[in-house]
């Protein structure tokens, strides 16, 4: 399999404080489905930020799509980011834009033709069960609907890697299960999926490879069956 993410001996420290991550090494292959479990404060979000290039590690090497991110210039970082879809824990929807324009944002940034945007965005939102919500502002939607908008925005450009930070944190069991099924459908289309969750028991229910982060140290907790 081709490597999508390769972390080698990653360490992260903010100021004089203790390390948040110690010697983290991890490999995500193309088409794989992965869980990253760990209690709150274990360093999951920091690790995800390093993968999606929002943070630089204090030590170690980050390789994305066979490109050493630490050696890459600003333009290359932008190109790498365009291959990654992110579902943020707090969704980070743009309040003054409609649902349609929020989802269209990655396409517009990539200078996709407006005709393509007009066709694809409503279709995707319909697939996510959000037909009829296209022109609403995110603030008028329920938490679950906002989350689906955030997922739609993350996958609209058909990324090679989809990262979801605690997507099941604020939903009940059935919805959480449904969300994972959505991610599995996206994964079947060829996208590598990495889901971070604090709920170890929940992640164990799935036959996917799982990494576990405990006080900044990463271990491979489960080989899984589909990775």
């Amino acid at each position, binding site marked *: 399999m081709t490597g999508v993410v390769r972390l080698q001996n990653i360490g992260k420290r903010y100021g004089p404080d203790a390390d948040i991550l110690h010697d983290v090494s991890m490999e995500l292959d193309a088409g794989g489905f992965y869980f990253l479990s760990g209690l709150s404060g274990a360093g999951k979000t920091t690790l995800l930020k390093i993968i*999606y*290039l929002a943070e630089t590690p204090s030590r170690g090497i980050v390789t994305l799509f066979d490109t050493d991110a630490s050696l890459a210039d*600003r333009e290359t970082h932008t190109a790498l980011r365009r291959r990654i879809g992110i579902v943020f824990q707090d969704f980070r929807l743009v309040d003054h834009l*409609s649902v349609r*324009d929020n989802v269209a944002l990655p396409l517009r*940034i990539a200078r996709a033709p407006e005709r393509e945007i007009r066709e694809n965005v409503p279709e995707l939102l319909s697939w996510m069960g959000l037909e009829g919500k296209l022109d609403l502002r995110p603030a008028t939607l329920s938490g679950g609907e906002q989350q689906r908008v955030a997922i739609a925005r993350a996958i609209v450009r058909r990324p090679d890697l989809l990262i979801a930070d605690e997507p099941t944190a604020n939903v009940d069991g059935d919805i959480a299960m449904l969300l994972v099924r959505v991610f599995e459908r996206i994964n079947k289309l060829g996208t590598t999926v990495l889901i971070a969750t604090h709920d170890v028991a929940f992640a164990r229910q799935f036959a996917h490879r799982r990494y576990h982060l405990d006080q900044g140290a990463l271990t491979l907790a489960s080989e899984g069956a589909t990775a």
Partner: protein
Amino acid sequence: MIGAPRLSLLPHQLRLDLPLRQDESARFLPWIIALMVYFAAMGGVGLISLGEALSRWDASLAGTLTLQIPPDTSQPRIDMALGALRQTKGVVSARLLPPEETANLLQPWLGNNVAIADLPLPQLIDVRVDPRMTIAYTMLRSQLASVIPGSRLDNSPSWVGGARDFALRIEDVITAGVAAIAALIITIIIFTARIGLAIHRSVIELLHLLGAQDAYIARQFQIHALSLGLRGGFIGAIVAALTVAFLEPAAHMLALPVPIAAYGIFDWRVWLLLIAACLMAGGIAMVTARITVLRQLARMP
């Protein structure tokens, strides 16, 4: 209809992902720019007027000399001086200005209410010379002084020389003022752009994470700044045009020796200046915003 495709009137390139139009700066900045464009435009109108006045004076003075003689000079002495002037090589003509013509020259400066005829004014001899010829002024002056003691030969009337120097200084002051206004616009746009970056930092970070290049984000700020600059520039230019139209009759009334009295709002240069001021305001705002934002973004991860 909910769910129906909504066509935006704005082309893709002009759409703002950042809510810059909701910022406080979007409300006050056009008015500040309008005020500055107004002052700059009025300064420009002043420069046009002064430049025109100077060139008129220069044109009228080319080939002209003035001989001032004391008011009580006898007619025979005046005739002798006129004869000496007319015999001088390079002098085309020489004539004594009648008192009413001298009074007309002084009227714009002394006003209508002064009885010029009662003033002990010097008499003036208007001398036309061939500009291509070189005149021996030192010799001519001493010759005239021997005929009429106390006479004074000027290459140009003294008030014109003083006014010319004064006008040139005013030109420098206006130019410096316009440059200061441009610098002020740049400074305000820099601060506004920086504030905008700080306010919208989270959305900017999001755009970066979604793969936006710095130029994409900078374009949002520059479109916004261009819009504010043009709006402010337009308002300032319109008010400046109204001011010129308002000043025109006043300039006529005072008989000011500047072209605002001659052409006023119908002077094409005034319109060119107002349009240029408006476009410059937009251009300066746009370029300043772009450079500022790109520099700031380069510091972000």
